[in-house]
Each structure stands twice: as C-alpha cells, then as structure tokens.
C-alpha cells in the first residue's frame, strides 16, 4: 500500500481511497471514478465560449496514468462521465477505450449522460443504471440500500477546513458515513468545480491534499 492512500473497509470489502480522487477495490482490481465530465471544455467551445480545451486531454492522460499505477482490470464510472451531447472529445475517449480493450469499462448513467446511445460499439463501454459490486451498490445519486454499501458521485463534495490564526481552506473530499453505509466520491474531472458540504463530525471525511489522502473527521 502506498502511504498516501487510505485503506478502509466497506461491509467487509477492502477499498483504498486514492489521492487521484478515485476508489480502488483490490480484490477485483476495480477503479471507481465519479464525475469526469468529459467534453465539458469542448461543449463550451462548440457554443462559442473559448475555454482552453487542454483540460479534456488532461482528464484522459490522468485516467491512463491511474490505470497503469494500480494495474486496474475494471473501471466503473459513477455517472456524469460525459458533460453533454457528443462532441469532439468523444473521439479521444473512443481512442482511449480502444487502447485499453483488456479492461472492462462500465458507466453508471448520471444526469449529465444525456446521450446513453453514444456509439461505443467496437470499444467496450457497458452502460447500466446501477451495479452491485463486492457488496457495494454503485450509483450516480446517493441511494439507500438495506444491505449494500452505497458508493455514488454527483455531489462533487468539498469541505472547508479551519486552522489556528483564522486560516480557512476549501479542499475536495471523500465523504463517508460508515453507520449509514454510504460514500460519496470527489469529482475526477479537472474542470468540474466542487460543492462545499457540512458533514456531521465523526462520520468519515477524507480530504485530497496534493499527493495524499488525509482523514479530517
């Protein structure tokens, strides 16, 4: 285990929280990734808003680096993989899928994935509404389940931290509640923003700080 990662147990399943803002399930070699929003920059550009497009390419290279580092065999996207209607960024993503044919890609559909009929035949991207995996229920929106541990995205959670000397900081986080059995992943995409949440103390907040994941609550 890398010192920067944090090992947790979800209903008995071992999972690692990664500083790349993803969750890794070592038994099946599965990476869980939420809210990539591929093509967001392109969507803006297509509509005449000139934001640099480099971010889209960067998303994919970070994804590739992460897959290589963890030697992942499966990747689950917990919704909002795509930002909007198909656009130029889809092509780079298709190339990425084709390059990694040995990996099983699954998309849990999110509210932004408005076009689930995108054609990825040839490349393997399976689209589902939700998925059961190693005692976990993978969804886009947080969902209660009597038995399974729910992992979801959508929120782009972040917390505000306070230090001595009137210092404040906003950082993206994993937000877990082991009693109520759910966990929300930070957004993976680099042009996605975050939403400040105010969790109750002692429930499980892990912030992403540089190359480390640090538990703050």
């Amino acid at each position, binding site marked *: 285990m890398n010192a920067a990662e944090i090992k947790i147990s979800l209903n008995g399943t071992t999972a690692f929280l990664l500083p790349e803002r993803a969750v890794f399930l070592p038994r099946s070699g599965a990476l869980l990734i939420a809210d990539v929003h591929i093509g*967001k920059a*392109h969507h803006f550009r297509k509509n005449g808003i*000139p934001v640099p497009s480099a971010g889209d390419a960067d998303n994919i290279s970070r994804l590739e680096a992460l897959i290589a580092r963890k030697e992942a065999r499966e990747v689950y996207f917990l919704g909002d993989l795509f930002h909007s209607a198909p656009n130029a960024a889809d092509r780079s993503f298709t190339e990425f899928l084709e390059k990694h044919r040995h990996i099983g890609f699954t998309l849990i559909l999110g509210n932004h994935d408005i076009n689930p009929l995108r054609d990825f035949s040839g490349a393997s991207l399976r689209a589902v509404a939700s998925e059961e995996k190693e005692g976990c229920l993978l969804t886009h929106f947080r969902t209660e389940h009597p038995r399974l541990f729910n992992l979801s995205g959508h929120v782009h959670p972040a917390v505000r931290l306070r230090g001595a*000397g009137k210092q404040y900081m906003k950082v993206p986080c994993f937000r877990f509640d082991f009693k109520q059995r759910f966990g929300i992943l930070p957004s993976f995409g680099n*042009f996605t923003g975050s939403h400040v949440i*105010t969790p109750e*103390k002692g429930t499980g907040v892990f912030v992403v700080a540089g190359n480390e994941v*640090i538990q703050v609550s």
Partner: protein
Amino acid sequence: MADVGLARARSWFAKRGWKPFPFQEETWKACLSGKSGMLNAPTGSGKTYAAFIGAAEAVREELTAATDTGRRKLRILWITPVRALTKDIRRACAAYCLETGADWTVAVRTGDTPTAERNRLKKTPPEVLITTPESLHLILASKDAEAYLKHVRFVVADEWHELMGSKRAVLFELALSRLKTWAKVQVWGISATVGNMEEATEVLLGADAEKNDHAFIKANIEKKVKIVPIIPPEIENYPQAGHLGTKLGAQLLPVIEKSKTTLIFTNTRSQCEIWYRRLLELNPDLAGLIAMHHGSIDRELRDWVEDALHEERLKCVVCTSSLDLGVDFRPVETIVQVGSPKGVARFLQRAGRSGHSPGAVSTICFLPTNSLQLIECAALRRAVDRRDVEDRIPYIRSFDVLVQYLVTLAVGDGFYPEKIYPEVKGTYSFASLSESEWIEVLTFITKGGRSLEAYDEFRKVDVLPDGLYKVTSRRTAMRHRMSVGAIVSDPMLKVKFQKGGYLGTVEEWFISKLTPGDSFWFAGRSLELVRIREMTVQVKVSKKKTGIVPSWQGGRMPLSAMLSKNLRIKISELATDEAREAEVTALAPVVTTQRKLSHIPKDDEFLMEKIRTREGTHLFMYPFEGRHVHEGMAAVIALRISRLTPISFSIAVNDYGFELLSDAEIPIEAALKTDLFSAENLTTDIQAGLNKTEMARRRFRDIAGIAGLVFKGFPGSQQTEKHLQSSAQLFFDVFRDYEADHFLFRQAFDEIMTFQVEEVRLRNSLAKIRAQKKVLTCPDRPTPFCFPILTDRLREKLTSEKLEDRIRKMTLALEK
C-alpha cells in the same frame, strides 16, 4: 451663420427670464465653430443647457447648409452613465427643441426601455437619442447599425468623470471610434473636476484626435463647503471598530429637525436600510416624512422619492451613491455623510447636493462610525480647503471589452478587421495595441484561441469567404446580446409581494441563506420569505421586528491617495500635539490609550505592532495608504517573511494599515534585518504574492464576465443551457493550468497592478517607509489603531508551508 444659432439660444434663455453664464455662452460658441471639447462643470450648474443647445444649434446650422432633409435621422447622441438621469435630460432637451421651432424627437433608450419602444425607435429614428454606453453597443449589435448611426454628428458624454474610471468608458471609446469613421463627429464631455482633467479629455477624444484643436471650458461656480463633525459625547465608549454609527442616531435628530430637507449618505445599501429603521425608531413622528433611496429599490419607488424631494414633501432621505448624481433637489439644505466617503471628490460632490440659492454655503455633517474616523474628518477638511481632488485612472488595454466589442460588431453588420484595427488603435485605451495582440484577439473570437486538439468544433465568429467577420449562429448572437456591458454583478432576484407589487432586487447569494418563513428587512419593511420561484422572491409583510438586513456585495472602496496623504499629515499632527480641530481634540482619550499601549507615528516614523493572542501572533503595520496599497504591500511583506521560514499567514487590511496573522511566531525582528521594504525584485515579488492570494482570481471574475466566458443562462432555460454554465473561478483555474500566457489571464494581473495594488503608489510608499524610522512595539492588548483590522473577517491568505502539513493542523469548519 453661427449667429443665428447663438441668437436663438440667447432669446430662448431671455424668454425664460434667465441669463446665460459665461461658460454656457462659451460652450455654444465653441460648438458652433465646429470644435470638440470638454466642459468642466459640476452637477446642477446648467451644464445640460450649455452642451445640448450647443449641439443642437451646431447640427441645425449644418442641416440648413446641406439641405439634408427627408427622412428622420439620428443626429445627436447623449450618453449618460445613469439611467435615472435620462428623464430630466429628455425633458430639458425636448423643451428647447419645441420652443425654438425644431421639429425634432428626443427619445430615451436604456435597459429599461420596453422592446416595443425599442423597435419603434429603430424604425423611426429620433433626432436626439439619450442612452447609455451599453445600449449604444446593443444598437451596434443590431442589423443595419451603420445605416442607423451613420448620420450622428454630435456626441455628448455626460458625467464623464463617472464613466471614465470604469470600463464603461472603454465601451464608449470603441463605439465612438466606429461613429467617427462614418461621419465627422463633434465630441463633447461634461465632467466634474478630476485631478487629471487633461487626461480625461484625451481619453474622451481619442488618441487620434488633434491635440490642440479642442476647447476646454471651465464653469467657475465653486461653492463654499462647511464641514460639521458629529462628535460622540463619550468618545471612550464609542465603538473602536465598525461601520454603522447608529449609536450617534440621536445626535442626528436635531440636525434633521433644523433643516428643510436632509440627505443622509451611507456607503452601502444595507447601512442605508439599517439607518432608515434606526431613525424611525428614534423618532416615530418621522413616519411619512422620511424615505429611503438605493440602487436595489424598484425604479418606481425611487422616482416617487425623487419627486417628493423636489416637492418638499420629505424631511429626510437616507440614500447611497444612488443620489450622488442627477438633477438638483432644491429643498435640500443639509447633507450627512455616514462613515468615510473614501475620497475627496465624492465628498465634495455630496456636499454640493445642498445649498442651492446663489451664494449659499453647502453644509455637510460628518458622522464617524468609529472613533478613529474623526481624524478622517480633519483630513477631509484639509483636502477640501486645498481642493485636493483625486485623479480618475482610465482603463487601458481592456482586452475583455475589446473581445466583447468585436463580437458585438460581428453580431451586428459584421466587420472587416483591416478597417476596424486602425479605429481601435485610435482610441485612448488601445493606442498601444500591437499587431500581434490584435491577431491574438481575432484568433480568440474565431478559433477560440489556440487549440491543442485535432478535432475542434469551436464556433463563435465565422469568417465569410469575402473576409467579413460575422456571427451566423442565432443562439450565439442571442447569448451575446444578453451579456453586453461592462458591469458584472451577481445574479439578482426580484423581490415581489405574493399578491403582486414589486419592491426591488437582492443578490442571489443573500436569499440562498434564507429558508421560507425567515424574515428580513428590505426597502424599509420587515418581510417574510414565502418562496423563491424562478428568478423571483415572493414575500409577505412580516410582523417581526427583528430580521436580518441583506448585504449587497460589491467592492470595498479604498481610501484615495489624496485623502490618505491628508490623513497621514493629521496623524503626524496628533503625534506632535499640533492638531487644533474640534474633531481631533475630541479624540484625546483614544490618543492617550494608543500612546500608552503603543505609539503614535510622527511623519518620519513607521509604526509596527506585534501582539500575541490565543489565535497566534498578529503583526500590524501602518502605512496609511488605503486598503488597495495595503493589500499589495501585505502580500509582498508576507511573501518575504515566508521565505525565512515555512509559515502561513492570514491577511487583513483596512485603510490605515494591515495585519499578518500566523498561528506560529512571526520572525519580524529577523526580517527587519533583511531588506524587508526593498524595491528590489518588487514586481516579481508582487506577482508571486498575488499568485498566492485570491486577488487575481477575483479580478478575473469580471474579465471572464465581460469577455463572454461566463454565461448566466436565459431565464427558465433548459438543460443544454445549464451545461454551459460555469463559474469564473473554474475558468481561472483552467487558464492558470493550461494557458497562463493568455491575454485575458494576463489582463487580470495588469489590472491588479494598476487599480488594485496601484504599483506606482506602492513603490512610492515603500520608498517612504525605507527612509522612515521603524518603530516596533509589543502592546499587551489590542490598540485603538489595530482594533478595526483585528476584527475584520474578510481575509486573504499566503503560505510557504506544504499543503499536507497545513491540513494536518486543521479541523473541519462546521459552518459554511
């Protein structure tokens, strides 16, 4: 020929029983001789008649000569920064036209003008159009803009001092550059006195104007100003920090009682609400005789207040800068300024709103909101005596506005770059625009800047086969028209009664903190939030007497250099016991405390205070240069100290000084042995300091808005539009990470250097400090000087610690 016009003007004045002032005659003559120029005249001096009659007669003379009759054509553009002024100007202009036999229409087109009226104006142009810079750009963004505007012969920029210090002046300059190509245009500015009158004229007329061929006319109507301080009876018990001053409310009652009508100027809209409520509590008999006026209140309500002011039906109006400009309210006898006016010009302008009978003295009461502010009163007195009026710094190289303008042209008739480039370069703002920068801007609007990817679908401005730059997408055009302008504000929600009845607007972020059932104060009433539907806040009258007051965000104004200079002199007089003014001698107990705990710096001394509290070490420094300079200096000093040891600071500033607060010990003694105030590497250090704080991020917000990056969405729009919404914050991150050399990104830093940090002022200030004797005291409790800064909650941060190390020392903040 010119004599005909002059005679007509004179006889019209005579008919009304008026005698023209020399400056009016002069302006008429200059206009009739074909000149452009600047009229330096204060509000309410008859400046409208000077410029309008000049314009009208100059145009009439040309029309008779050219026999250019036939269809109606737009001849005169009157640009004003404030919509509220348009009504009175229209009335005055229309009266002159009608009574001198000109069969002209005088019309108003602003953001408030209904679509039907706009269409009518488009079909049948008026001869005279009174409008704002934004509305003028909207005309440029419409079809056949050239046909509509090419007959304009005369342009008047009213209240130019107000426009000039903002990007709206750049909008004006660019629009004018287009008009000048279509016809020979006479341009006149009307401006109150600014420190840099000559530069103001250059900005107005453009870099390409003939230097010596314009008129400069000054109206010598200077009123005497009497400043009356309102001194707290027990200065020891008066708040040391704060910006409300309502504790002095009772002292204000006799002032209101004594004069026919009193205007009370507050600095913010929430102060305005609070003061209104407080005065009614103190004297319930004022009900019906007191009113409130600020920019978020419904226009109709404001109109009612203004009319009531004219008709002497009000004893007192609590207002904000919303009443700074505009026509005179003759019954106003006394002005009250609550808190620091921040600048000499603004103070004079407000004082000038009283005392209108010939030879009358303008009386302005200064009400301090904390004890130390009394020194500012003395500083203002000195500045007013010497007529130390501030410069207005013009915006130059505002690429965000240029981007917007070019898209505006492309949405309208389209444009050919080779035609537009010389025009743009002819403006004051873009005189230094290089060819390569121009190409960068063109690439930005056509290709979205450089794209690193093979498949790019960027679409905004298309280049047609004949080289015409044109927006062909209707959606893009529509989106662009919705965001024309240089004022960026948070989304505003309308406040309405459930049963109908519009009250005004509040910022979205304020309402988002409330839940239905909560009550809040707005427009002087206690309201209960019922629900929020689309862009409307529905309310009903609440019986609760408590409730929060909305605060409208908006920049905190810095103390001007002029006022700072005078303030420093007064502080030094305190140190040497030379001060004689009542407001300063009243401060004696505060001065004694400051002296006992720390020190009062003389002219050749620089004061620093180091205090330890539970929070950590506080280091205060007092350059007395205004908050903007302090922001920059604090960033530089913090950066330089942070090089000695890994340390994190939170930074607070006010107009007198700044604070560096750290959870650890601040090695100031060691830092003072280095060249802490050196000018060496200053620019690099400022840049590095800025990169580590939030300042550039905040500046970029406006730039992103003006350049069309941030799109707020159509009201009630669907999903696909929502997918185009993103915060300026995110854009900042994306540009910083991927295109840090982008011209819009660089502009944020340039603007900070000019307007925020005011680099020149910062340099001078550091040079002064280097020559001063450093006095470092270690008081055992907060001093009167540091207290207002200590309690400030708005803070910057700067750190040289590793993120991971900082986080380990932090805990979860449980409130937002």
